[in-house]
């Protein structure tokens, strides 16, 4: 109604709503154009495989991966009855429990040490972050030598101290721990670098002010460093947790899931199911379960984290 009322006054009146709509559409097209490369890449390598996995998880397949018989949710029922899958779930959870706190704690200590302003600290920063540049395969080979039952350094040290040699990768009680240790070592580089970056972005005035107030080292650590670092810690926690659930390389290289399936982590189990046993249906079902677990964990983390994390 208003538009009509205005028309006599403005002879060359413009239809504003129409103009705005036009602009919005052209903006949308421009935006999508900018996103197109990502949309294409994600589509081909992420969204399509994801859809296909969900589809496959409802079927039995032949050994080429083509669906043959529709079985509905039977694949899911089957894997939850399989002791192997439950075992690998348990191993994965234990593995995450070892590696996530281990990685963060070690990296945090190293980052706090490397954040001191000392002559030659750059050398230590380089050393501590260097594992980031080493591929999982290379690192695994390196650790395989360390873990070697007879010529490995670890066993030599253990024997030199008067203990009995440990079957690091062959003893079911030790294997998961050994893989965890090597994983922590591999993760440290990245985590250390992120945490160091977080530490360096804390305003030095805060520490100076605390110095004048008479705060001691650990008081400052507890009341300033940790709270100010919480967004970074939260990020690192999320990333390492997801990484822990997706671990594959070091298992494949070090233990191949053995001994007695102790280190058969969930991704390795999916790999075996799909590419050794050619059971693409059940493998897909396992993958979906893994996806749901990670999704839920991340959601819970964000819900809990929001209360504890202080964003600037």
């Amino acid at each position: 109604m208003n538009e009509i009322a205005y028309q006599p006054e403005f002879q060359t009146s413009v239809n504003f709503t129409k103009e705005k709509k036009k602009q919005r559409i052209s903006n949308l097209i421009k935006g999508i154009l900018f996103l197109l490369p990502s949309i294409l890449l994600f589509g081909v390598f992420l969204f399509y495989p994801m859809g296909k996995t969900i589809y496959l998880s409802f079927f039995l397949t032949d050994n080429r991966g083509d669906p043959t018989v529709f079985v509905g949710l039977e694949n899911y029922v089957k894997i939850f009855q399989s002791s192997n899958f439950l075992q690998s779930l348990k191993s994965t959870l234990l593995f995450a429990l070892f590696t996530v706190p281990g990685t963060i704690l070690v990296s945090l200590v190293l980052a706090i040490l490397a954040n001191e302003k000392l002559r030659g600290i750059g050398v230590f920063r380089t050393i501590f972050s260097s594992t980031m540049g080493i591929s999982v395969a290379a690192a695994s080979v390196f650790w395989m030598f360390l873990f070697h039952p007879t010529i490995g350094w670890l066993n030599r040290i253990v024997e030199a101290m008067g203990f009995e040699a440990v079957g690091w990768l062959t003893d079911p009680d030790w294997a998961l721990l050994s893989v965890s240790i090597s994983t922590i070592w591999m993760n440290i580089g990245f985590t250390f670098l992120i945490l160091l970056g977080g530490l360096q972005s804390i305003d030095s005035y805060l520490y100076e002010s605390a110095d004048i107030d008479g705060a001691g080292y650990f008081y400052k650590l507890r009341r300033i460093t940790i709270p100010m670092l919480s967004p970074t810690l939260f990020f690192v926690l999320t990333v390492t947790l997801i990484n822990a659930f997706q671990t594959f390389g070091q298992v494949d290289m070090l233990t191949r899931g053995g001994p007695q399936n102790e280190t058969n982590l969930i991704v390795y189990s999916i790999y075996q199911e799909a590419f050794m046993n050619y059971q693409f249906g059940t493998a897909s079902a396992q993958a979906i379960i893994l996806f749901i677990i990670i999704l839920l964990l991340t959601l819970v983390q964000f819900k809990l984290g929001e209360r504890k994390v202080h964003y600037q």
Partner: protein
Amino acid sequence: MKAVECIDISKSYDKQKSVLDQISFSIEEGEFYVLVGPSGSGKSTLLRMIAGLEEISSGMLRMNDKVVNHLPPKDRKLSMVFQNYALYPHLTVEQNILFGLRAKKVDKKEQQKRLLETAEMMGLTDLLKRKPKHLSGGQRQRVALARSVVSRSPICLMDEPLSNLDAKLRAHMRVEIRRLQRKLGLTMIYVTHDQIEAMTMGDRIMVLNDGKIQQIGEPITLYNEPANLFVASFIGSPKINLSKVNLLDQKIILECGLELALEKGDLLPLLTYKNVTMGIRAEHILPGTHENTTHLLEVVNVEQLGNETLLTFEVGKELWTAKWLGQWKVKAGEYVPVSISTKNISFFDTDTGVLIKPCMPTTEQEVVLI
């Protein structure tokens, strides 16, 4: 007793260029001492050395007659307000104020008592549960002050605490800080680059430039008898008008040809110097009347401030500013009569910048007349 005493304090980085060069001064108990200077003059470094946040390269720092060079900041019994306030963003106002007391493990009851007292004094009682993010600039400033007051340290250091506030709030906080300092009897060392802050707040002012002390004195002394050209042009707003002059037959002649007659007594001390610069404050270039007009000057710009008028004249290569009380209807390009009295002129040695002869002190009566 001297609250703080610096003896030949120097600071250099990597044993090369010295940032501060042989600084010596002393501050009395309960004094409001202002360090002023342009950026890069070393004033903040000096303050941080007093606080113990920077190493002292050489020299001696004494507090209450005890050498404190080797003491960490917490043992120097002082508090500090930083330029950006250094509030802990993850803590509430209350926790921010109590941070230091908790660190020193002060008794819980005593903590609460001091907190309430300080919050009351600073008008923060209603804001105690807020985080710094939800405070305005002025409120943050007050929290920073409260944090330093609550520690009950006898010496308080401030590093440009008002530079993040807008002009109005700054004027207000100047008064607040000064009042607080008097009320608590604090010894205050206050760093600023703003000469107005220095003039209005300080009991005594130290002017620093390039790591060297230019002058120490009361604000009025600095204004009336600046020790050198740097202090003369740094203190006072609008800036003092400076021009190089030649001496000829009991007259001083400016480069542009402007002449001023001098009495013999005033002339004598100038004769020994080869190059002389004269300085005259803006309020000493008076509007000329029939009797006392000495010169006609061309106006190049007029600034109406309401209660006073700033006129800019072109005098040779220099621009001079005059501050006239009241509202003057003058347009740029006009020639206006002015009255310049030689007794209001200070003279400096151009080569060294050192003051030769200050202007005559204005008596109270004259102040009324202007």
